[in-house]
């Protein structure tokens, strides 16, 4: 299976052939993947060098001329380092674009904390009007990339990961999927967390919602699932800072007495290298830890 990032470079390269409004801005990362597209479209595949403020500023400038920019690098250098550019050069200018990140929260554990961005979605939550896609499979990444590019002048964040589910689901760029129904509570699994969540809740009488578009948050799907359960108990399992979507759950259930448990990446640095699965365990996101935390919260 290809990686989400390989799928992104292949599909974006094809979209450049089809859509004269599309442009890709790079800061050295993934340059090889765009080599052929860059040869075909030298004016619409721009590599600014290791200059991430310029990466986003150039994207804003391209959008001001009417193009649809994709800006791409590791999440830590796309959202965190040039955050004011994301805020001002896109949002405040009233223009849009597509931010496509790689490496996420823990995808290169041996690279250490400098290359981890567990706070990216929370940062974007401080801004207005961002759509956030978190695919769990390369096929889903392709679908969501196509949605993002086609979304007019919207501001869209597509968060790619090395962590991948074995099977793709049919995602639509907006709604949560109901994968299991039960009466004992609702578990929302975001993108790459799905398989660990399904393992964790095996045999439990709970509903599992699969979320690959987390902003806007599918309030209707959550309310429907909660309404069908015996108790309004909600667990969200996210591959970025724990609790990032807790506010969205609360906002969806303002008229319903409810409980919510937010699971995800802790803020404390592990200061460990090693492998991805070791980091998942370090954050309590392996199936065994998830089952213990979910059953403890649900009281069964």
């Amino acid at each position: 299976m290809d990686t989400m990032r390989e799928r992104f470079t292949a599909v974006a390269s094809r979209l450049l052939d089809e859509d004269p409004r599309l442009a890709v801005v790079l800061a050295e990362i993934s340059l090889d993947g765009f080599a052929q597209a860059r040869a075909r479209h030298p004016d619409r595949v721009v590599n600014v060098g290791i200059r991430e403020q310029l990466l986003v500023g150039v994207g804003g400038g391209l959008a001001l001329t009417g193009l649809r920019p994709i800006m791409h690098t590791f999440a830590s250098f796309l959202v965190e380092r040039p955050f004011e550019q994301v805020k001002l050069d896109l949002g405040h200018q009233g223009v849009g674009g597509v931010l496509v990140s790689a490496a996420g929260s823990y995808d290169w554990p041996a690279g250490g904390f400098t290359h981890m961005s567990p706070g990216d979605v929370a940062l974007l939550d401080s801004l207005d009007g961002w759509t956030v896609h978190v695919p769990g499979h390369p096929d889903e990444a392709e679908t969501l990339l196509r949605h993002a590019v086609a979304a007019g002048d919207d501001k869209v964040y597509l968060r790619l990961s090395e962590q991948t589910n074995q099977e793709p689901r049919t995602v639509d760029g907006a709604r949560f999927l109901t994968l299991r129904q039960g009466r004992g509570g609702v578990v929302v699994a975001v993108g790459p967390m799905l398989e660990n969540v399904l393992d964790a809740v095996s045999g439990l009488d709970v509903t599992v919602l699969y979320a690959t578009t987390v902003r806007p948050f599918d309030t209707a799907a959550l309310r429907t699932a909660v309404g069908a359960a015996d108790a309004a108990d909600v667990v969200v399992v996210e591959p970025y800072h724990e609790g990032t979507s807790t506010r969205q759950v609360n906002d969806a259930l303002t008229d319903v007495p409810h409980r919510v448990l937010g699971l995800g990446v802790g803020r404390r640095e592990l200061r460990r290298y090693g492998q991805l699965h070791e980091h998942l365990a370090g954050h309590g996101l392996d199936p065994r830890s998830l089952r213990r935390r979910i059953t403890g919260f649900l009281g069964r």
Partner: protein
Amino acid sequence: MTNAIRTQTENGAAGSGEPASLMGLMTGAEKHGPAATSTLDALWVLYDRVLRVSPGTVDDPGRDRFLLSKGHGPMAYYAVLAAKGFFPSTWLPDFGTYDSPLGHHPDRTLVPGAEIGSGSLGHGLPLAVGTALGLRAQGLDDPAVWVLVGDAELDEGSNHEAIAYAGATGLSRLHTLVIDNSSATHGWHGGIAAQFEAAGWSAVTVNGRDHQALYEAFTAPHPGRPHAVVAQVEPKGTAVPKVS
């Protein structure tokens, strides 16, 4: 700064009489007065003699772009836009009030003719690079892209990402106007123009109150290279021209 420039300053905005008087409509509410007047002559020469943009072409893809990056002290900018008819001069007295589209930093979504919203320093040059690239990608090789920055604004590292990239790639439709009122605390060893030249730009330094010198600097050929004009004016806080 020489006495010659000071002398010209006192007569300074003579050729910009209309915008100078329009600025007076805003002075009551303005907190960045000295910085604002530093840009007046250069802005007037650009809009009066160089830029191919008018109220009728603000949405024309082929228009020249002017990006005010140094959003502090936008009075001169608003006065020039009003003098050129981009919006009514009756907007000016309400400058900075809740219902006014004219803030102490400009917002492009509120001000007709403003290409960017600015205020936080160091955003205009990268946006201008992207604008120049976007025009080129659409086959619009004719429009010029201008961005105005302040000498102290060059402290911001984002400018240097843009300057180095634009110079290395020969982005020849890009123009930077640096208003140098000696407001940077540490400045640049070797001078501002030398920094641009070292990065591969064409660069010229002129008296920022001399309209003919500004015009010649703005229109100097610079084949294959982006162009920087460093317009020197009186140091910040001294010899502010009267805004009669």
